[in-house]
């Protein structure tokens, strides 16, 4: 809504209201970021790009990018593309929708640390899941779902799926259902309605959801340490940054790693968002609504 306020005299005091928040953001978000960026070019020893050179040449550092991507991308793809059909089913406002939505909020709020501890107890080699599988002979032999890649992946799905689901659900319910009804009177069955009406209108939202879910997954940290094998297979880039900052006290290198982390995220986000430009841009109502 655009309110053109006629200002009687001078300056609109309401504009002052943003100043404290804006100032705060600038000081504590923008400034550290810029500071970190500059710092990354001032390494302890070596020229301006020494940190970055070190990152890409050290075998303890540059593989972390690949490791993190190997975790984040599958987790995001699972989260988004499993959430989509389920949210589509739930698009009608019903008691189920409310119940499911409320239930799914619980894992989000509990947080990654609790999920990690829960998984260690439940998915561990002597936990209930292992016992269940043994008793039912669904799988004989030890299950290894903790302290490895799978543990971290599962925890990323547990913490990321509800978020993706709620976000996609909110996008889907924003699409006027009368459009699907109109399509059905013109001969579109359920599959055609999804393909020609919902999917194109959802595409921008899906892309957004993918980006947000990916960014969350890419910065995985406590799960990788607690549930993974931080020395090797799940040595993610945030661990490398943390070690540089708090174990080696090399803040410059840590900032460089954080910048690289941000850059990789940016590349993937930009790529996904550029794909959505192919689809529709604009409001999702069907008329003068």
């Amino acid at each position, binding site marked *: 809504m655009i309110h053109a306020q006629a200002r009687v005299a001078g300056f609109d005091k309401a504009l002052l209201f943003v100043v404290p928040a804006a100032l705060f953001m600038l000081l504590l978000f923008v400034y550290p970021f810029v500071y970190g960026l500059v710092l990354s070019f001032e390494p302890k020893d070596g020229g301006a790009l020494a940190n970055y050179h070190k990152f890409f040449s050290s075998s303890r550092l540059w593989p972390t990018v690949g490791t993190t991507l190997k975790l984040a991308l599958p987790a995001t793809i699972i989260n988004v593309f499993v959430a989509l059909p389920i949210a589509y089913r739930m698009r009608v406002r019903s008691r189920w929708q409310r119940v499911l939505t409320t239930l799914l909020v619980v894992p989000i709020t509990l947080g990654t640390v609790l999920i990690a501890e829960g998984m260690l107890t439940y998915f561990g080699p002597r936990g209930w899941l292992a016992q269940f599988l043994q008793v039912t002979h669904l799988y004989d032999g030890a299950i290894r779902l903790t302290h490895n890649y799978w543990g971290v992946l599962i925890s990323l799905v547990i913490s990321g799926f509800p978020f993706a689901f709620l976000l996609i659900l909110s996008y889907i319910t924003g699409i*006027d259902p*009368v*459009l699907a*009804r*109109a*399509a*059905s*009177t*013109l*001969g*579109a*069955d359920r599959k*055609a309605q999804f393909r*020609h*009406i919902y999917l*194109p*209108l959802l595409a921008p939202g899906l892309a957004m959801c993918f980006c947000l879910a990916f960014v969350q997954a890419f910065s995985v940290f406590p799960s990788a340490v607690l549930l993974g094998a931080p020395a090797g297979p799940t040595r993610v880039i945030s661990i490398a940054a943390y070690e540089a900052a708090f174990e080696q006290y090399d803040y410059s290198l840590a900032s460089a790693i954080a910048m690289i982390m941000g850059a990789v995220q940016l590349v993937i986000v930009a790529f996904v968002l550029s794909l959505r430009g192919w*689809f*529709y841009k*604009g*409001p*999702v*109502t*069907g*008329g*003068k*609504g």
Partner: protein
Amino acid sequence: MKHDFSELRLDRVTRRFAGSGGNAFNALNDLTLTVRRGEFIALLGPSGCGKSTALNCVAGLLPLSGGTIRLDDTRIDTLPPERRGFGMVFQNYALFPHMSVVKNIGFGLRMRGMTQADAAPRIANALRLVQLTGQESKLPGQLSGGQQQRVAIARAIVIEPPLILMDEPLSNLDAKLRLETRSEIRRIHRELGRATIYVTHDQDEALSLADRIVVMKDGVVQQIGTPEEVYAQPANIHVARFMGYRNVIELPVTSERDGRVTLEAPDMRLTGVAKLPLDGGRALVAMRPEEITIASEPAATNVIGGRVDSVEYGGRDSLVEVVTSSGARLHVRAAGKVSPGANVFVHVPPERVLVYPGEAQ
């Protein structure tokens, strides 16, 4: 689906809604109606009367709780909407916002497997019919309300459906555009000759467009008739009230013979025509403002005396409110000059005094 038919039969169509607090109620109760080929039917009534429910049931967007719908010999109420092949125009147009005008109109053809090349001339014809040639590649968001409405109409007719359904298509347009688009709809119907079911709460639209009008209230059909019948001979007091018989007065019946009823009150004595069997000593009298004339002296029968309370100037005539000695208010359309405060006599011809049984208390 056949492209042509001789009749669409709705047989005791009922739709039940589970209301809040466990009260189920019938949004639509035993609707029985036959639509013939090429006929323009208007479903008319106030909001909540079930007209939109009926339309959605015919379209297949709502399942029936009872009754059947048949297209000639085929039973269609068990078919989903995509198999019925009717064209539908929605109140909010429901244009697909991500598709151009051409793609919107061609959607039904595309669903039927028509190629782009085959569909193009039909889409062009439809655009010409609704006078939107030149807007092909615009998106709905770039069109005005009236243009969007015409795209919606084109989209429904291009598939050559046996039946066109319209759900209050004009209610979102401003007054001038409404009149213009109404003429468009009449013209299109004349050109195409397709059966149409048109839902509206506006009696002017129904009167001007329909071959037959179905007046509904609370899910029940009140009257089915031509516009002339519904306008001049409403079947019951609800239809009368809805069709503009603003003067409804409850009066005691003094005598009744051969359909002619006489009613008397201290301030008036009226003779009228009973439209329904009367029971009990009191009845409702309905009169149109346009059929009451103002005279300054009493004429023979059906004259009521009163004082002019207010005059609403309307150009061609004025809407005059006359108050009788007992406080009853009469709305009269009078040409000529009438002054507030003047004492007048109003006269209604007996054939235009319609008498109905009193409402159950």
